[in-house]
Structure formats: structure tokens, C-alpha cells
């Protein structure tokens, strides 16, 4: 059961529809406590970073608890940005802070002076992090982008972006290189919109749904303590 966190940031219906097409079971949690029994969490979103402030202390704690217990989590677009420390778009709104780094605005110019249109809207390509790089987030096996051919086009729409850190499993360039996908333990994120990226995007969501379906849940093995 995948929890789709609704915090008023838009693309919930599209993500729900895409997960439905994949046959995934989805709930929309009404309160943070509802995250306790799910096997996966998706934080969708599109728009202004300030909107994430509606994910208050209760939600933050519940998500952190779930991550601590190994529950697979996928942040999409704004939902991925929220996983970092914070964003220049809303300096007073803290991110969840499970990935180090700060979200910054994409430049209006390339290093060579060429003009760049912002927001970055449309289909751009994924360049995978070399799987043999020591910094690779999951040198064992990158799971989020499993089966996605390098150079695949996916759909972006954003003006702010995450830095390339050792959590970055794929990058894209628009004015500068930025993290298009991140993966660190159970915490996954994509700057692009898998729910709007055709068959490639559905494959990414299917990878997440598979991780969620194989996660045993927090109840496993805990009976003795109850």
C-alpha cells in the first residue's frame, strides 16, 4: 500500500492515475499516523517551495520515522526538493533535510553566455551516474532507474533544482547540470515528472511500486514487542 501525501501541491490526481494504471494500491493519508502501516510513501508536488510548509512537524516526524524504518519513499519534483535542507525559493521554509544540499534557481545563462529559458519546461535527457563511481549512491544496484536506458527523455517543469551530490543517480543539464534523480537508501527522488513522462516515466514509477511491494512493512518481526 503506497501513501500519496496530499499537501495541496497539485499533481496528486496525475500521480494517482499513473499508479492506478500500474495496478498499485494507493491511499491518501488523512493524518501522519496513517503513514505507519504503508509500504511506500510518495511525496508529489509541483509549484512553489513555500507550499511544503503545510507538511508540519507531525508529518515531518512521521516521514522521518518511516524512512528510519526503511520504508521506500519517492519525492517527485517539489517533493524531491523538499528532501533537501532547504530552497532559495522560500528561504524560511526548512526542507526535510534527509539529503544534504540546498535547492537553487537555475541560471538564466549558460557558462558560455547563451540565454536559457526559465522555467525549464519540456523533455530533457537523463545522464546516469557511472555505476562504478565510488560515490555512486547504490553501487550495488541503482533501483529507481533500473531498466531505464541512458539518454532517455523525461518531462520537466521547474525553475529551481537540486545540486549534484553523491546521492545523485542521474543528472540533466539546463543552463547548468542538476540532479534529475537521487537515491540514498530508501530515499528516492526525481526532479522530472514520471507521471507525465510517457512509458519511461511509468517504468520509473513501476520500479518504485515494486520496491514498495517487496518492503515487508514495519510490523514485520515486531510481534514479540507488542
Amino acid at each position, binding site marked *: 500500500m503506497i501513501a500519496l501525501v496530499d499537501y495541496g501541491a*497539485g*499533481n496528486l*490526481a*496525475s500521480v494517482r*492515475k*499513473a499508479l492506478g*494504471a500500474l495496478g498499485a494500491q494507493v491511499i491518501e493519508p488523512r493524518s501522519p499516523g496513517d503513514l505507519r502501516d504503508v509500504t511506500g510513501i510518495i511525496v508529489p508536488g*509541483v*509549484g*512553489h517551495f513555500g507550499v511544503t510548509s503545510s507538511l508540519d512537524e507531525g508529518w515531518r516526524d512521521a516521514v522521518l520515522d518511516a524512512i528510519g524504518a526503511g520504508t521506500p519513499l519517492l519525492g517527485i519534483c517539489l517533493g524531491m526538493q523538499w528532501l533537501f535542507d532547504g530552497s532559495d525559493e522560500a528561504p524560511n521554509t526548512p526542507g526535510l533535510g534527509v539529503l544534504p544540499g540546498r535547492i537553487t534557481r537555475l541560471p*538564466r545563462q549558460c557558462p558560455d553566455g547563451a*540565454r536559457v*529559458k*526559465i*522555467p*525549464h*519546461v*519540456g*523533455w*530533457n*535527457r537523463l*545522464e546516469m551516474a557511472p555505476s562504478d563511481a565510488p560515490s555512486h549512491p547504490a553501487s550495488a544496484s541503482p533501483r529507481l532507474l533500473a531498466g531505464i536506458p541512458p539518454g532517455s*527523455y523525461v*518531462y*520537466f*517543469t*521547474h*525553475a529551481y533544482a537540486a545540486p549534484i551530490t553523491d546521492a545523485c543517480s542521474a*543528472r*540533466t*543539464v*539546463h543552463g547548468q*547540470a542538476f540532479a534529475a534523480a537521487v537515491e540514498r537508501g530508501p530515499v528516492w527522488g526525481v526532479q522530472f515528472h514520471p*507521471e*507525465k*513522462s*510517457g*512509458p519511461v*516515466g*511509468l517504468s520509473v514509477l513501476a520500479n518504485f511500486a515494486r520496491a514498495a511491494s517487496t518492503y515487508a512493512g514495519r510490523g514485520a518481526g515486531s510481534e514479540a514487542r507488542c
Partner: protein
Amino acid sequence: MLTLAKRLIACLDVRDGRVVKGVNFEGLRDAGDPAALATRYNEEGIDEIVVLDVAATLERRLALRQTVAAVAARLFIPLAVGGGIRTLEDAAEVIDAGADKVSVNTAALADPSLITRIADRFGSQAVVVAIDAARAGDSFVVSSHSGRVPTSWGAVAWAREAESRGAGEILLTSIDADGTQRGFDCVLTAAVSTAVSIPVIASGGAGSPDHFAEAFTAGCADAALAASIFHDRACSVRSIKQFLADRAIPIRL
């Protein structure tokens, strides 16, 4: 090479639940079922779908929720919806029905703060400002009400104003070229596209693969939209994309 691809967008002008197509904004004829056409274009590799309710502003109705929902149901690519979006509530309704973006035109000209209100609620990426412009000597005059009522705005000035108000994209239609299949107005498109920092979609006049190449080179367009050329099966989406890729224009194949 990691480069943002130029987008090909299919426009479904919808009236009473059917796709229609006219010439120079008039003389509408039936071109099919919106959901069926959207599905076909999606399978052919279209990058985005736009649904415009062409009757809405004229007859003061909102684009049919049912049409939007039917088109969105089987689509996993971006969908923009316009026609008769007059208020924030209208925008919320089509977004709720499955649209990723709303396109505003006449209502934004009457009250530009509408652009900001929609952007504040749904983000700039959800607001497309549609501009219908016609040549008048050396300038381009913006019209409202499906191109029928000239305004005091020039196309470049209005595009800049829309950007400053929070528009995420400009959908720029040449009233002169629309429906003629004689090519996009690349002078108009380049003038607007180089004047703003947000993406500009060229619209009106597509009749051959060459016209798309011109829009992306001479016209400096970020995306190009067409209707008849796709509806009439004059050229398939895939064949146009291959044509553009062969000319080193970045395209998602």
C-alpha cells in the same frame, strides 16, 4: 548531449465534445473525437496535448469537464486546457479534471491579475498565456475573444507583461497564418521568443515538416503547435520528428 528538446504539441480545438478545425478562426468543421485523437497522437510520440474549447469564450461556457477527463484518462504526457477560463475557480476546475496547465487569453487581457492568482495557487508552470496576434504594418496587435476584438496591446509588450505577472509559458498564435498551412509567422514568433525568458510555443500555419524546422530556427520557438496537419494525417507526428532530428534539431524520438 543533454539538451532540452523542442516540443511538438497537438491542439484539439473542441466544440460540443468534438474536435473542430477552422481557417483564420472561422468556418469550423468536424475533425473527430478528442480522446481518440489524443490517444493516437500520444502513440505517435506527441510531446504534449492542448485542448481548447473554441466555443467557450464566445458562448460563455467552460471547457467541458467530461472532455478534459476523457482526454486525460489515458494520457501520461502533459495536458494543457484553455477556452473560457475566466476565474481562478475555472482554472481549478479543469486542473481537477486532469489538466496540468491552463491557458488563459481573453480574461487575462481584461484582468491581468488573473495570471498571478492562478500562478500563486498552482505555480507558474501551470499558467500558459495564449496570445492571438495579427500583423498591422510592422507591428503585431493582440486580439481578444478568439481573435475578433483588437486590443491596444502589442504582442511583445503583452508577452512581457504576462511573464512579469507569473506566466510560465506563452502560446503565441498568428491570426494571419492560422489554418492557412503556409507556415508559422516566424517574424512574430522570434520577436516574442527573444523578448521573454519563458518558453514560447509557436502556433498557426503549420503545413509541412519544413514549417516546424523554421519555427525552431528562424522563429526561435521552444515548441510548435499544430492541429490540421495532424488531424488530416497529412504528416504523422513521427515523420515530422524524424525530419527535425535529421536536421540536428533536438527532438524526443
